[in-house]
């Protein structure tokens, strides 16, 4: 291992030494949809205003596509200057192998401990007491997005919670509207399932299953209800045959679908389409049942590169990411929540305000990325992909889910 590391470092030094303007920092990320791209250009602009240069390394496709590319570049000795990852357990082994830059000094200097809210975000960046990433935003998955025009067409009021949403579904179908838009990809189906978990089984059961990995609760009666609800949701999404999440969101924007369970990043799409929260669309955090959000999100990691200019640029970017100015500009565009509670976001729209309030109240949960390893997540995603597209019974799915939880690490 040491030998490999030495070679890696040697290669990266070589690469760095040959580049002329040493402060060109290549930044890889997978923010490519409309709202995301607008947000990342804010960050790039702010970085270009320093003496360094932002070299954009956007990777199209979701995190599932981009993450292997990013990780294999870091492992393969061709590290980028900085990269987006979801903080949590994805980078654990890269840190163990000493491939990522330790940001602890900078964090202490700027007092990240005091400004980052909720503090669990920084904990997710921390490995054995050292800080390795700069959180940039908070994303929560537990949102139901509803189209006003779809409900108008069906002559109904916009639902205020999941139960009303389910009751209203048959009327929507009569009007030729798909009740629930759902992209046919494992992670989206898993996200919807996770959201139903918190809303229906409640936070206590959720904690026992996802944090304590208690398989008995996962096989128990609370979770039976969750699986039943998921089976019902599966019927509501039967005729939704799009793939990508933003295409599903587009069904809601255009009124072809009643609603979509998707993370708060969907908001950026509504914004780009010129829709106004409260009049054109409604958002229900926690499906209108349990107003509680998980605090997943994105963070930047900085691979170790033996070049002083690049090192300086990396630290500069890290500090910029957490700075109030960038936090406001970036998160307003992206529709995500800022990682610090001490900034003014009064210009944020209805939905973001709802999110901020929940955050301020401290109704937060750790995200799936923090609880589960990529391996366990993939297993659950596979199960969900199968469940949502087949006629698997709720009981079978629950049994298999419980066995995955039992073997989770």
């Amino acid at each position, binding site marked *: 291992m040491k030998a490999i590391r030495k070679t890696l470092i040697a290669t990266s030094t070589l690469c760095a030494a040959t580049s002329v303007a040493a402060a060109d920092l290549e930044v890889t990320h997978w923010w490519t949809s409309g709202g995301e791209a607008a947000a990342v250009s804010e960050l790039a602009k702010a970085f270009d205003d320093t003496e360094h240069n932002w070299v954009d390394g956007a990777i199209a496709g979701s995190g599932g596509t981009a993450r292997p590319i990013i*990780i294999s570049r870091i492992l393969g000795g061709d590290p980028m200057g900085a990269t987006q990852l979801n903080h949590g357990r994805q980078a654990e082994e890269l840190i163990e192998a000493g491939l990522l830059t330790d940001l602890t000094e900078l964090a202490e200097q700027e007092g990240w401990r005091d400004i980052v809210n909720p503090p669990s975000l920084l904990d997710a960046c921390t490995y054995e007491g050292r800080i390795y990433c700069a959180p940039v935003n908070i994303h929560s998955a537990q949102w139901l997005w509803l189209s006003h025009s779809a409900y108008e067409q069906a002559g109904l009021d916009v639902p205020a919670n999941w139960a009303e949403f389910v009751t209203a579904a048959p009327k929507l179908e009569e009007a030729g509207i798909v009740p629930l838009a759902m992209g046919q990809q494992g992670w989206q189906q898993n996200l919807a399932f996770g959201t139903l978990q918190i809303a229906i089984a409640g936070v206590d059961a959720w904690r026992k299953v996802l944090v304590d990995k208690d398989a008995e609760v996962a096989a128990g009666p609370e979770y039976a209800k969750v699986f039943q609800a998921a089976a019902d949701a599966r019927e509501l999404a039967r005729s939704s045959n799009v793939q990508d999440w933003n295409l599903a969101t587009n069904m809601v924007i255009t009124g072809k679908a009643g609603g979509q369970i998707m993370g708060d990043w969907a908001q950026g799409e509504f914004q780009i389409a010129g829709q106004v929260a409260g009049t054109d669309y409604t958002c229900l955090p926690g499906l209108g049942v349990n107003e509680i959000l998980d605090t997943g999100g994105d963070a930047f990691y900085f691979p170790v590169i033996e070049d002083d200019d690049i090192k300086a640029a990396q630290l500069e970017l890290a500090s910029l990411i957490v700075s109030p100015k960038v936090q406001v500009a970036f998160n307003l565009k992206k529709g995500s929540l800022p990682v610090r509670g001490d900034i003014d976001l009064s210009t944020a729209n209805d939905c973001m305000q709802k999110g901020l309030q929940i955050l301020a109240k401290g109704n937060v949960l750790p995200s799936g990325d923090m609880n589960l390893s990529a391996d366990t997540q*993939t297993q659950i995603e596979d199960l969900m*992909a199968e469940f949502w597209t087949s006629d698997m019974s709720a009981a079978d799915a629950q049994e298999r889910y419980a066995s995955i939880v039992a073997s989770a690490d």
Partner: protein
Amino acid sequence: MESARKPLSVFKNLSAKIASVPMILTALVVFVGGTAWTVLHSFTGSRLLPKLKFVGFDQYERLWSTRRWLVSIENLAIYGVCSLILTLSIGFFLAALLDRKIRGEAVFRTIFLYPFALSFVVTGLAWQWILNPDFGIQNTVRSLGWQSFTFDPLNNPDIVIFGILIAGLWQGTGLIMVIMLAGLRGIDEDIWKATRVDGIPTWKTYIRVIIPMMRPVFITALVLIASGIIKLYDLVVAQTNGGPGIASEVPAKYVINYMFRAQNLGQGFAASTMMLVSVIIILVPWAYLEFGGKKRD
């Protein structure tokens, strides 16, 4: 005398031996070495980085109790058997037709071979559109008047693998046809004359005389088709990405996903070792028959 001659034989064809050293090294280090390394690590609990932390057969136990792997194996078996039989028979049939000295043979040959010039990714995307119920075959037939016509293999978990099979056949049969055609051209004209004198019908000549004579050609074709089946990956990724659900997953895709997306190298290695084992199970009896038989001759 004896002992003086022996060292000489080492230096016989010296330049040829030196020339083959790089390839021998590649084969030993990259293929054999890489395989051994993979098999070894399939018994470990390696996650993102390979580590020698042995866990016995845990990875294999988990592999064989994973629904997705079982679906993958089943899909590969269906795809493999159908693809093998259909590619060989369609390829041979087309070649036999072309061999009947038809007019415009070059044109047909080009048309049949053309799909082979496309990559699997392009093939997959093209067939994804053709088989899409909203603007592909189904829509075309419906707009002609058959309103109840349904043909949407890619959206139906039960038959999705046949949707992939269609694309695979379309892409692959052309090459096999050309190889078969070359084999047919290699048959001595006198054989045909002799069978005609004996009054044997043409179809019987093909089955009883020509096909047995084309044994080496069939084996070449078989190897090409078989390797194409085992490495089936890009076609699936482009056409369905394993969907709907996990209905069209294949083993190679399982390996890639678990190695890189799930960050579980051990599991990916176990799966790829199983793929290797299945190849060996098929290959060893065949090699035994093929090479064992020759020695006796």
